[in-house]
C-alpha cells in the first residue's frame, strides 16, 4: 500500500477528470493566452506530405510512432474556430490572430450542414450551459467517450502498437485500429469509438471508420454526424516522427450536403516537458539507470466526476456524489 502523499500525481489525475469544468478551463486558458505560449496556442498547421517512412520500425514492419501525443491547436471548445473559445466566449483574440478552422474543405471552413442539421448544431451550441433538454447535455461532460474525431482534440493520449494493431489510449476509453484486414462489423452494431480498419501507406496510417454511434459531438460548438457517417482518416507522420497531421474526410448524406475534410495537427510529448494534466498527462517513470520514459498511471473519468454537474445545475452540485461508493 502507498500512503496518500502530497505529490503532483494526484493533482494530475484529478485534473484530467474534471478539466472540462468551465471554471478550471477558464483559469487554464487565461494563464496560457498570448504571452504564455504553449502547444495549445500554435496558430498554424504544419505541412506534412504523405510519402516514404524512413524512421524506426517495429518487428512487424509498422512505422514506430508509439508514445504520448496531443493536438497543438486549442481543444474541443470550438470545432471551426479552435481558438475562438466555446460558444458565447467573448474573450478571444481577433479572428485573424487565431488558428484557422479545422475544416479545410469546403474552403469557407464550415461544416456543410443541411439546413435542419445547421439549426440543430446551433441549438446545441446555444444550450451548452443551459441544457433544458437532456439531449443538450454534452455527452463528454458525463464521461461518455469523446469518440471519433473529438478524442483527438481533448486530453493528450497515448499511441501503442502491437503486431496487427494500433491502439489509442484516450482518457475516455480505448480505441483499437485493426490492421489485419478483417471485414467491418455489420452496420447495425454502433460503437462510441466506431469500428476501425487500418493499413500503413509509407508514413501514413489510413483508417476506414464505420459503425460510429454518433452520440459524441465534435466540439462544444455542437457539430455532429449521424450513425450513417463514414470517415476516412489519414494520420500522416513527419519524417522525424515528432508530429503528425490527422486528416479526416466525413461522408454522411443524412446530415451534410457533401463530403468534407478536417485537419488536426498533433505533436509528440515527452522528455523535457512538464506534464500539464491536459495535453501531456504522462508521468516520468521512476526507473533509475534507464532511458527516460513516460507512463500514464490510470485513465479515469466517471470515478472522479462531479464538477461537470456544474454545467447542468451548479446549486445542486454538492449533493451529486452523495450516494456513490
Amino acid at each position, binding site marked *: *500500500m*502507498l500512503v*496518500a502523499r502530497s*505529490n503532483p*500525481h*494526484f493533482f494530475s*489525475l484529478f485534473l484530467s477528470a474534471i478539466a472540462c469544468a468551465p471554471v478550471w478551463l477558464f483559469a487554464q486558458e487565461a494563464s496560457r493566452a498570448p504571452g504564455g505560449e504553449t502547444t495549445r496556442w500554435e496558430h498554424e498547421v504544419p505541412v506534412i506530405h504523405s510519402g516514404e517512412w524512413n524512421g524506426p520500425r517495429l*518487428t512487424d514492419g509498422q512505422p514506430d510512432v508509439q508514445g504520448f501525443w496531443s493536438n497543438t491547436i486549442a481543444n474541443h471548445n470550438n470545432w471551426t474556430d479552435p481558438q475562438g473559445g466555446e460558444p458565447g466566449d467573448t474573450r478571444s483574440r481577433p479572428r485573424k490572430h487565431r488558428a484557422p478552422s479545422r475544416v479545410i474543405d469546403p474552403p469557407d471552413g464550415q461544416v456543410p450542414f443541411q439546413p435542419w442539421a445547421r439549426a440543430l448544431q446551433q441549438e446545441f451550441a446555444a444550450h451548452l450551459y443551459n441544457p*433544458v433538454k437532456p439531449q443538450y447535455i454534452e*455527452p463528454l461532460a*458525463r*464521461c*461518455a*467517450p469523446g469518440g471519433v474525431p473529438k478524442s483527438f482534440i481533448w486530453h493528450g493520449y497515448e499511441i*501503442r*502498437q*502491437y*503486431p496487427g*494493431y494500433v*491502439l489509442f*489510449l484516450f482518457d475516455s*476509453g*480505448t480505441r*483499437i485500429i*485493426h490492421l489485419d484486414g*478483417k*471485414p467491418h*462489423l455489420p452496420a447495425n*452494431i454502433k*460503437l*462510441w*469509438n466506431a*469500428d476501425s480498419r487500418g493499413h500503413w501507406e509509407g508514413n501514413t496510417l489510413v483508417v476506414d471508420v464505420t459503425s460510429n454511434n454518433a*452520440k459524441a459531438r465534435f466540439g462544444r460548438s455542437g457539430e455532429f454526424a449521424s450513425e450513417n457517417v463514414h470517415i476516412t482518416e489519414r494520420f500522416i507522420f513527419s519524417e522525424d516522427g515528432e508530429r503528425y497531421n490527422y486528416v479526416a474526410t466525413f461522408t454522411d448524406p443524412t446530415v451534410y450536403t457533401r463530403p468534407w475534410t478536417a485537419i488536426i495537427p498533433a505533436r509528440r510529448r515527452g522528455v523535457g516537458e512538464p506534464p500539464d494534466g491536459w495535453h501531456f498527462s504522462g*508521468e516520468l*517513470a*521512476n*526507473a533509475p539507470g*534507464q532511458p527516460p*520514459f513516460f*507512463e500514464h*498511471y*490510470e*485513465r*479515469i*473519468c*466517471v*470515478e472522479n*466526476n462531479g464538477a461537470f*454537474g456544474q454545467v*447542468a*445545475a451548479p446549486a*445542486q*452540485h454538492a*449533493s*451529486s456524489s*452523495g*450516494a*456513490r*461508493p
Partner: protein
Amino acid sequence: MPGVSLVALLLIAAFSARPAAADVPRLGGKPNLNGIWQAMNSANWNLEAHSAQKIDSQWELGALFPIPAGKSVVVGGKIPYLPEALKVRDKLRAEWPNSDPETFCYLPGIPRATYMPYPFQIIQGDRDILMVYSYATANRTIFMKDHQDPPIDSWMGRSNGHWEGDTLVVETTGFNGRARLDRAGNHFSPALKVVERFTMENANVIRYEATLEDPQTYSRPWTIRMPLYKHVEENAELLELKCVPFAEELLYKDLELPAKK
C-alpha cells in the same frame, strides 16, 4: 493417513508443475495469449458457492435477470476473512448495489476485471502486454520490462509481469482499495497484492489463477482458480460496453431540472 497425504501432495505438485501443452500457439518463443477471452461462470456474482436467487428489487423483470447458481472459484471454498473484515463483507453485501462500484461503471480492479461477465482482449507485445476490457473500455498494462513499484495508488493497480516457463506471472500492487471482488460484497484493502498466473492449457483455454495476499483483510493468502475461454468465432472482435451512459440516472439524477408541472 500419511500415505494419502503424500499422494495428494504429489498430485498437487504434478498439477502445479505441469508444463503447458506443446501445441499452444507461440509468439517469440512464449505462449501467444493474443485473442478475446472470457470467464464462463458466475464468479462476478459471488466468488464463493451460491444458490440461484432472484433480485428482490428487480421483481418487475421476472425471470430475466436472476443470480445464477455457481460453485466456488476459491481454492478451498471460502475466503479466509479476518473477523472485522467479514463484518465489512456482510455490510457491503447488504448495501448492494449501492456499495458496488460496478453499479456506477467505475473501474473493476484486479482480479475482478478478468472474470466480469464480458469479453476482454489480450494484446501481446515485446515491451508490455495490454489487456483491453469490453467493460468501460478499460485497459490494463502489464509491464514486462519496465518493472517498478507503483508510483501511485489506483483502481487497477500497477502490474509487473514475467514469464516462468510457459506461464505468464503478473504481480499487481498499488491499489486504492475502492474496487470490490464481486457483487456479493467480497472486498480487499489497499494493502492487497495479487499474483496472477496465466497458463495456456491449449489454444483455446487459459488456466487462470490469482492469489490474493492482504494481511489487513485476510488471515492468509488465498487463491481464485478458473478457466478462461477463447472466443473462437470467425472475426471475433471486442465490442465496447461503455456503461457510463447506462448509469447516468444513478450518477446524475439529482442534477435534473425539476419537471414542469
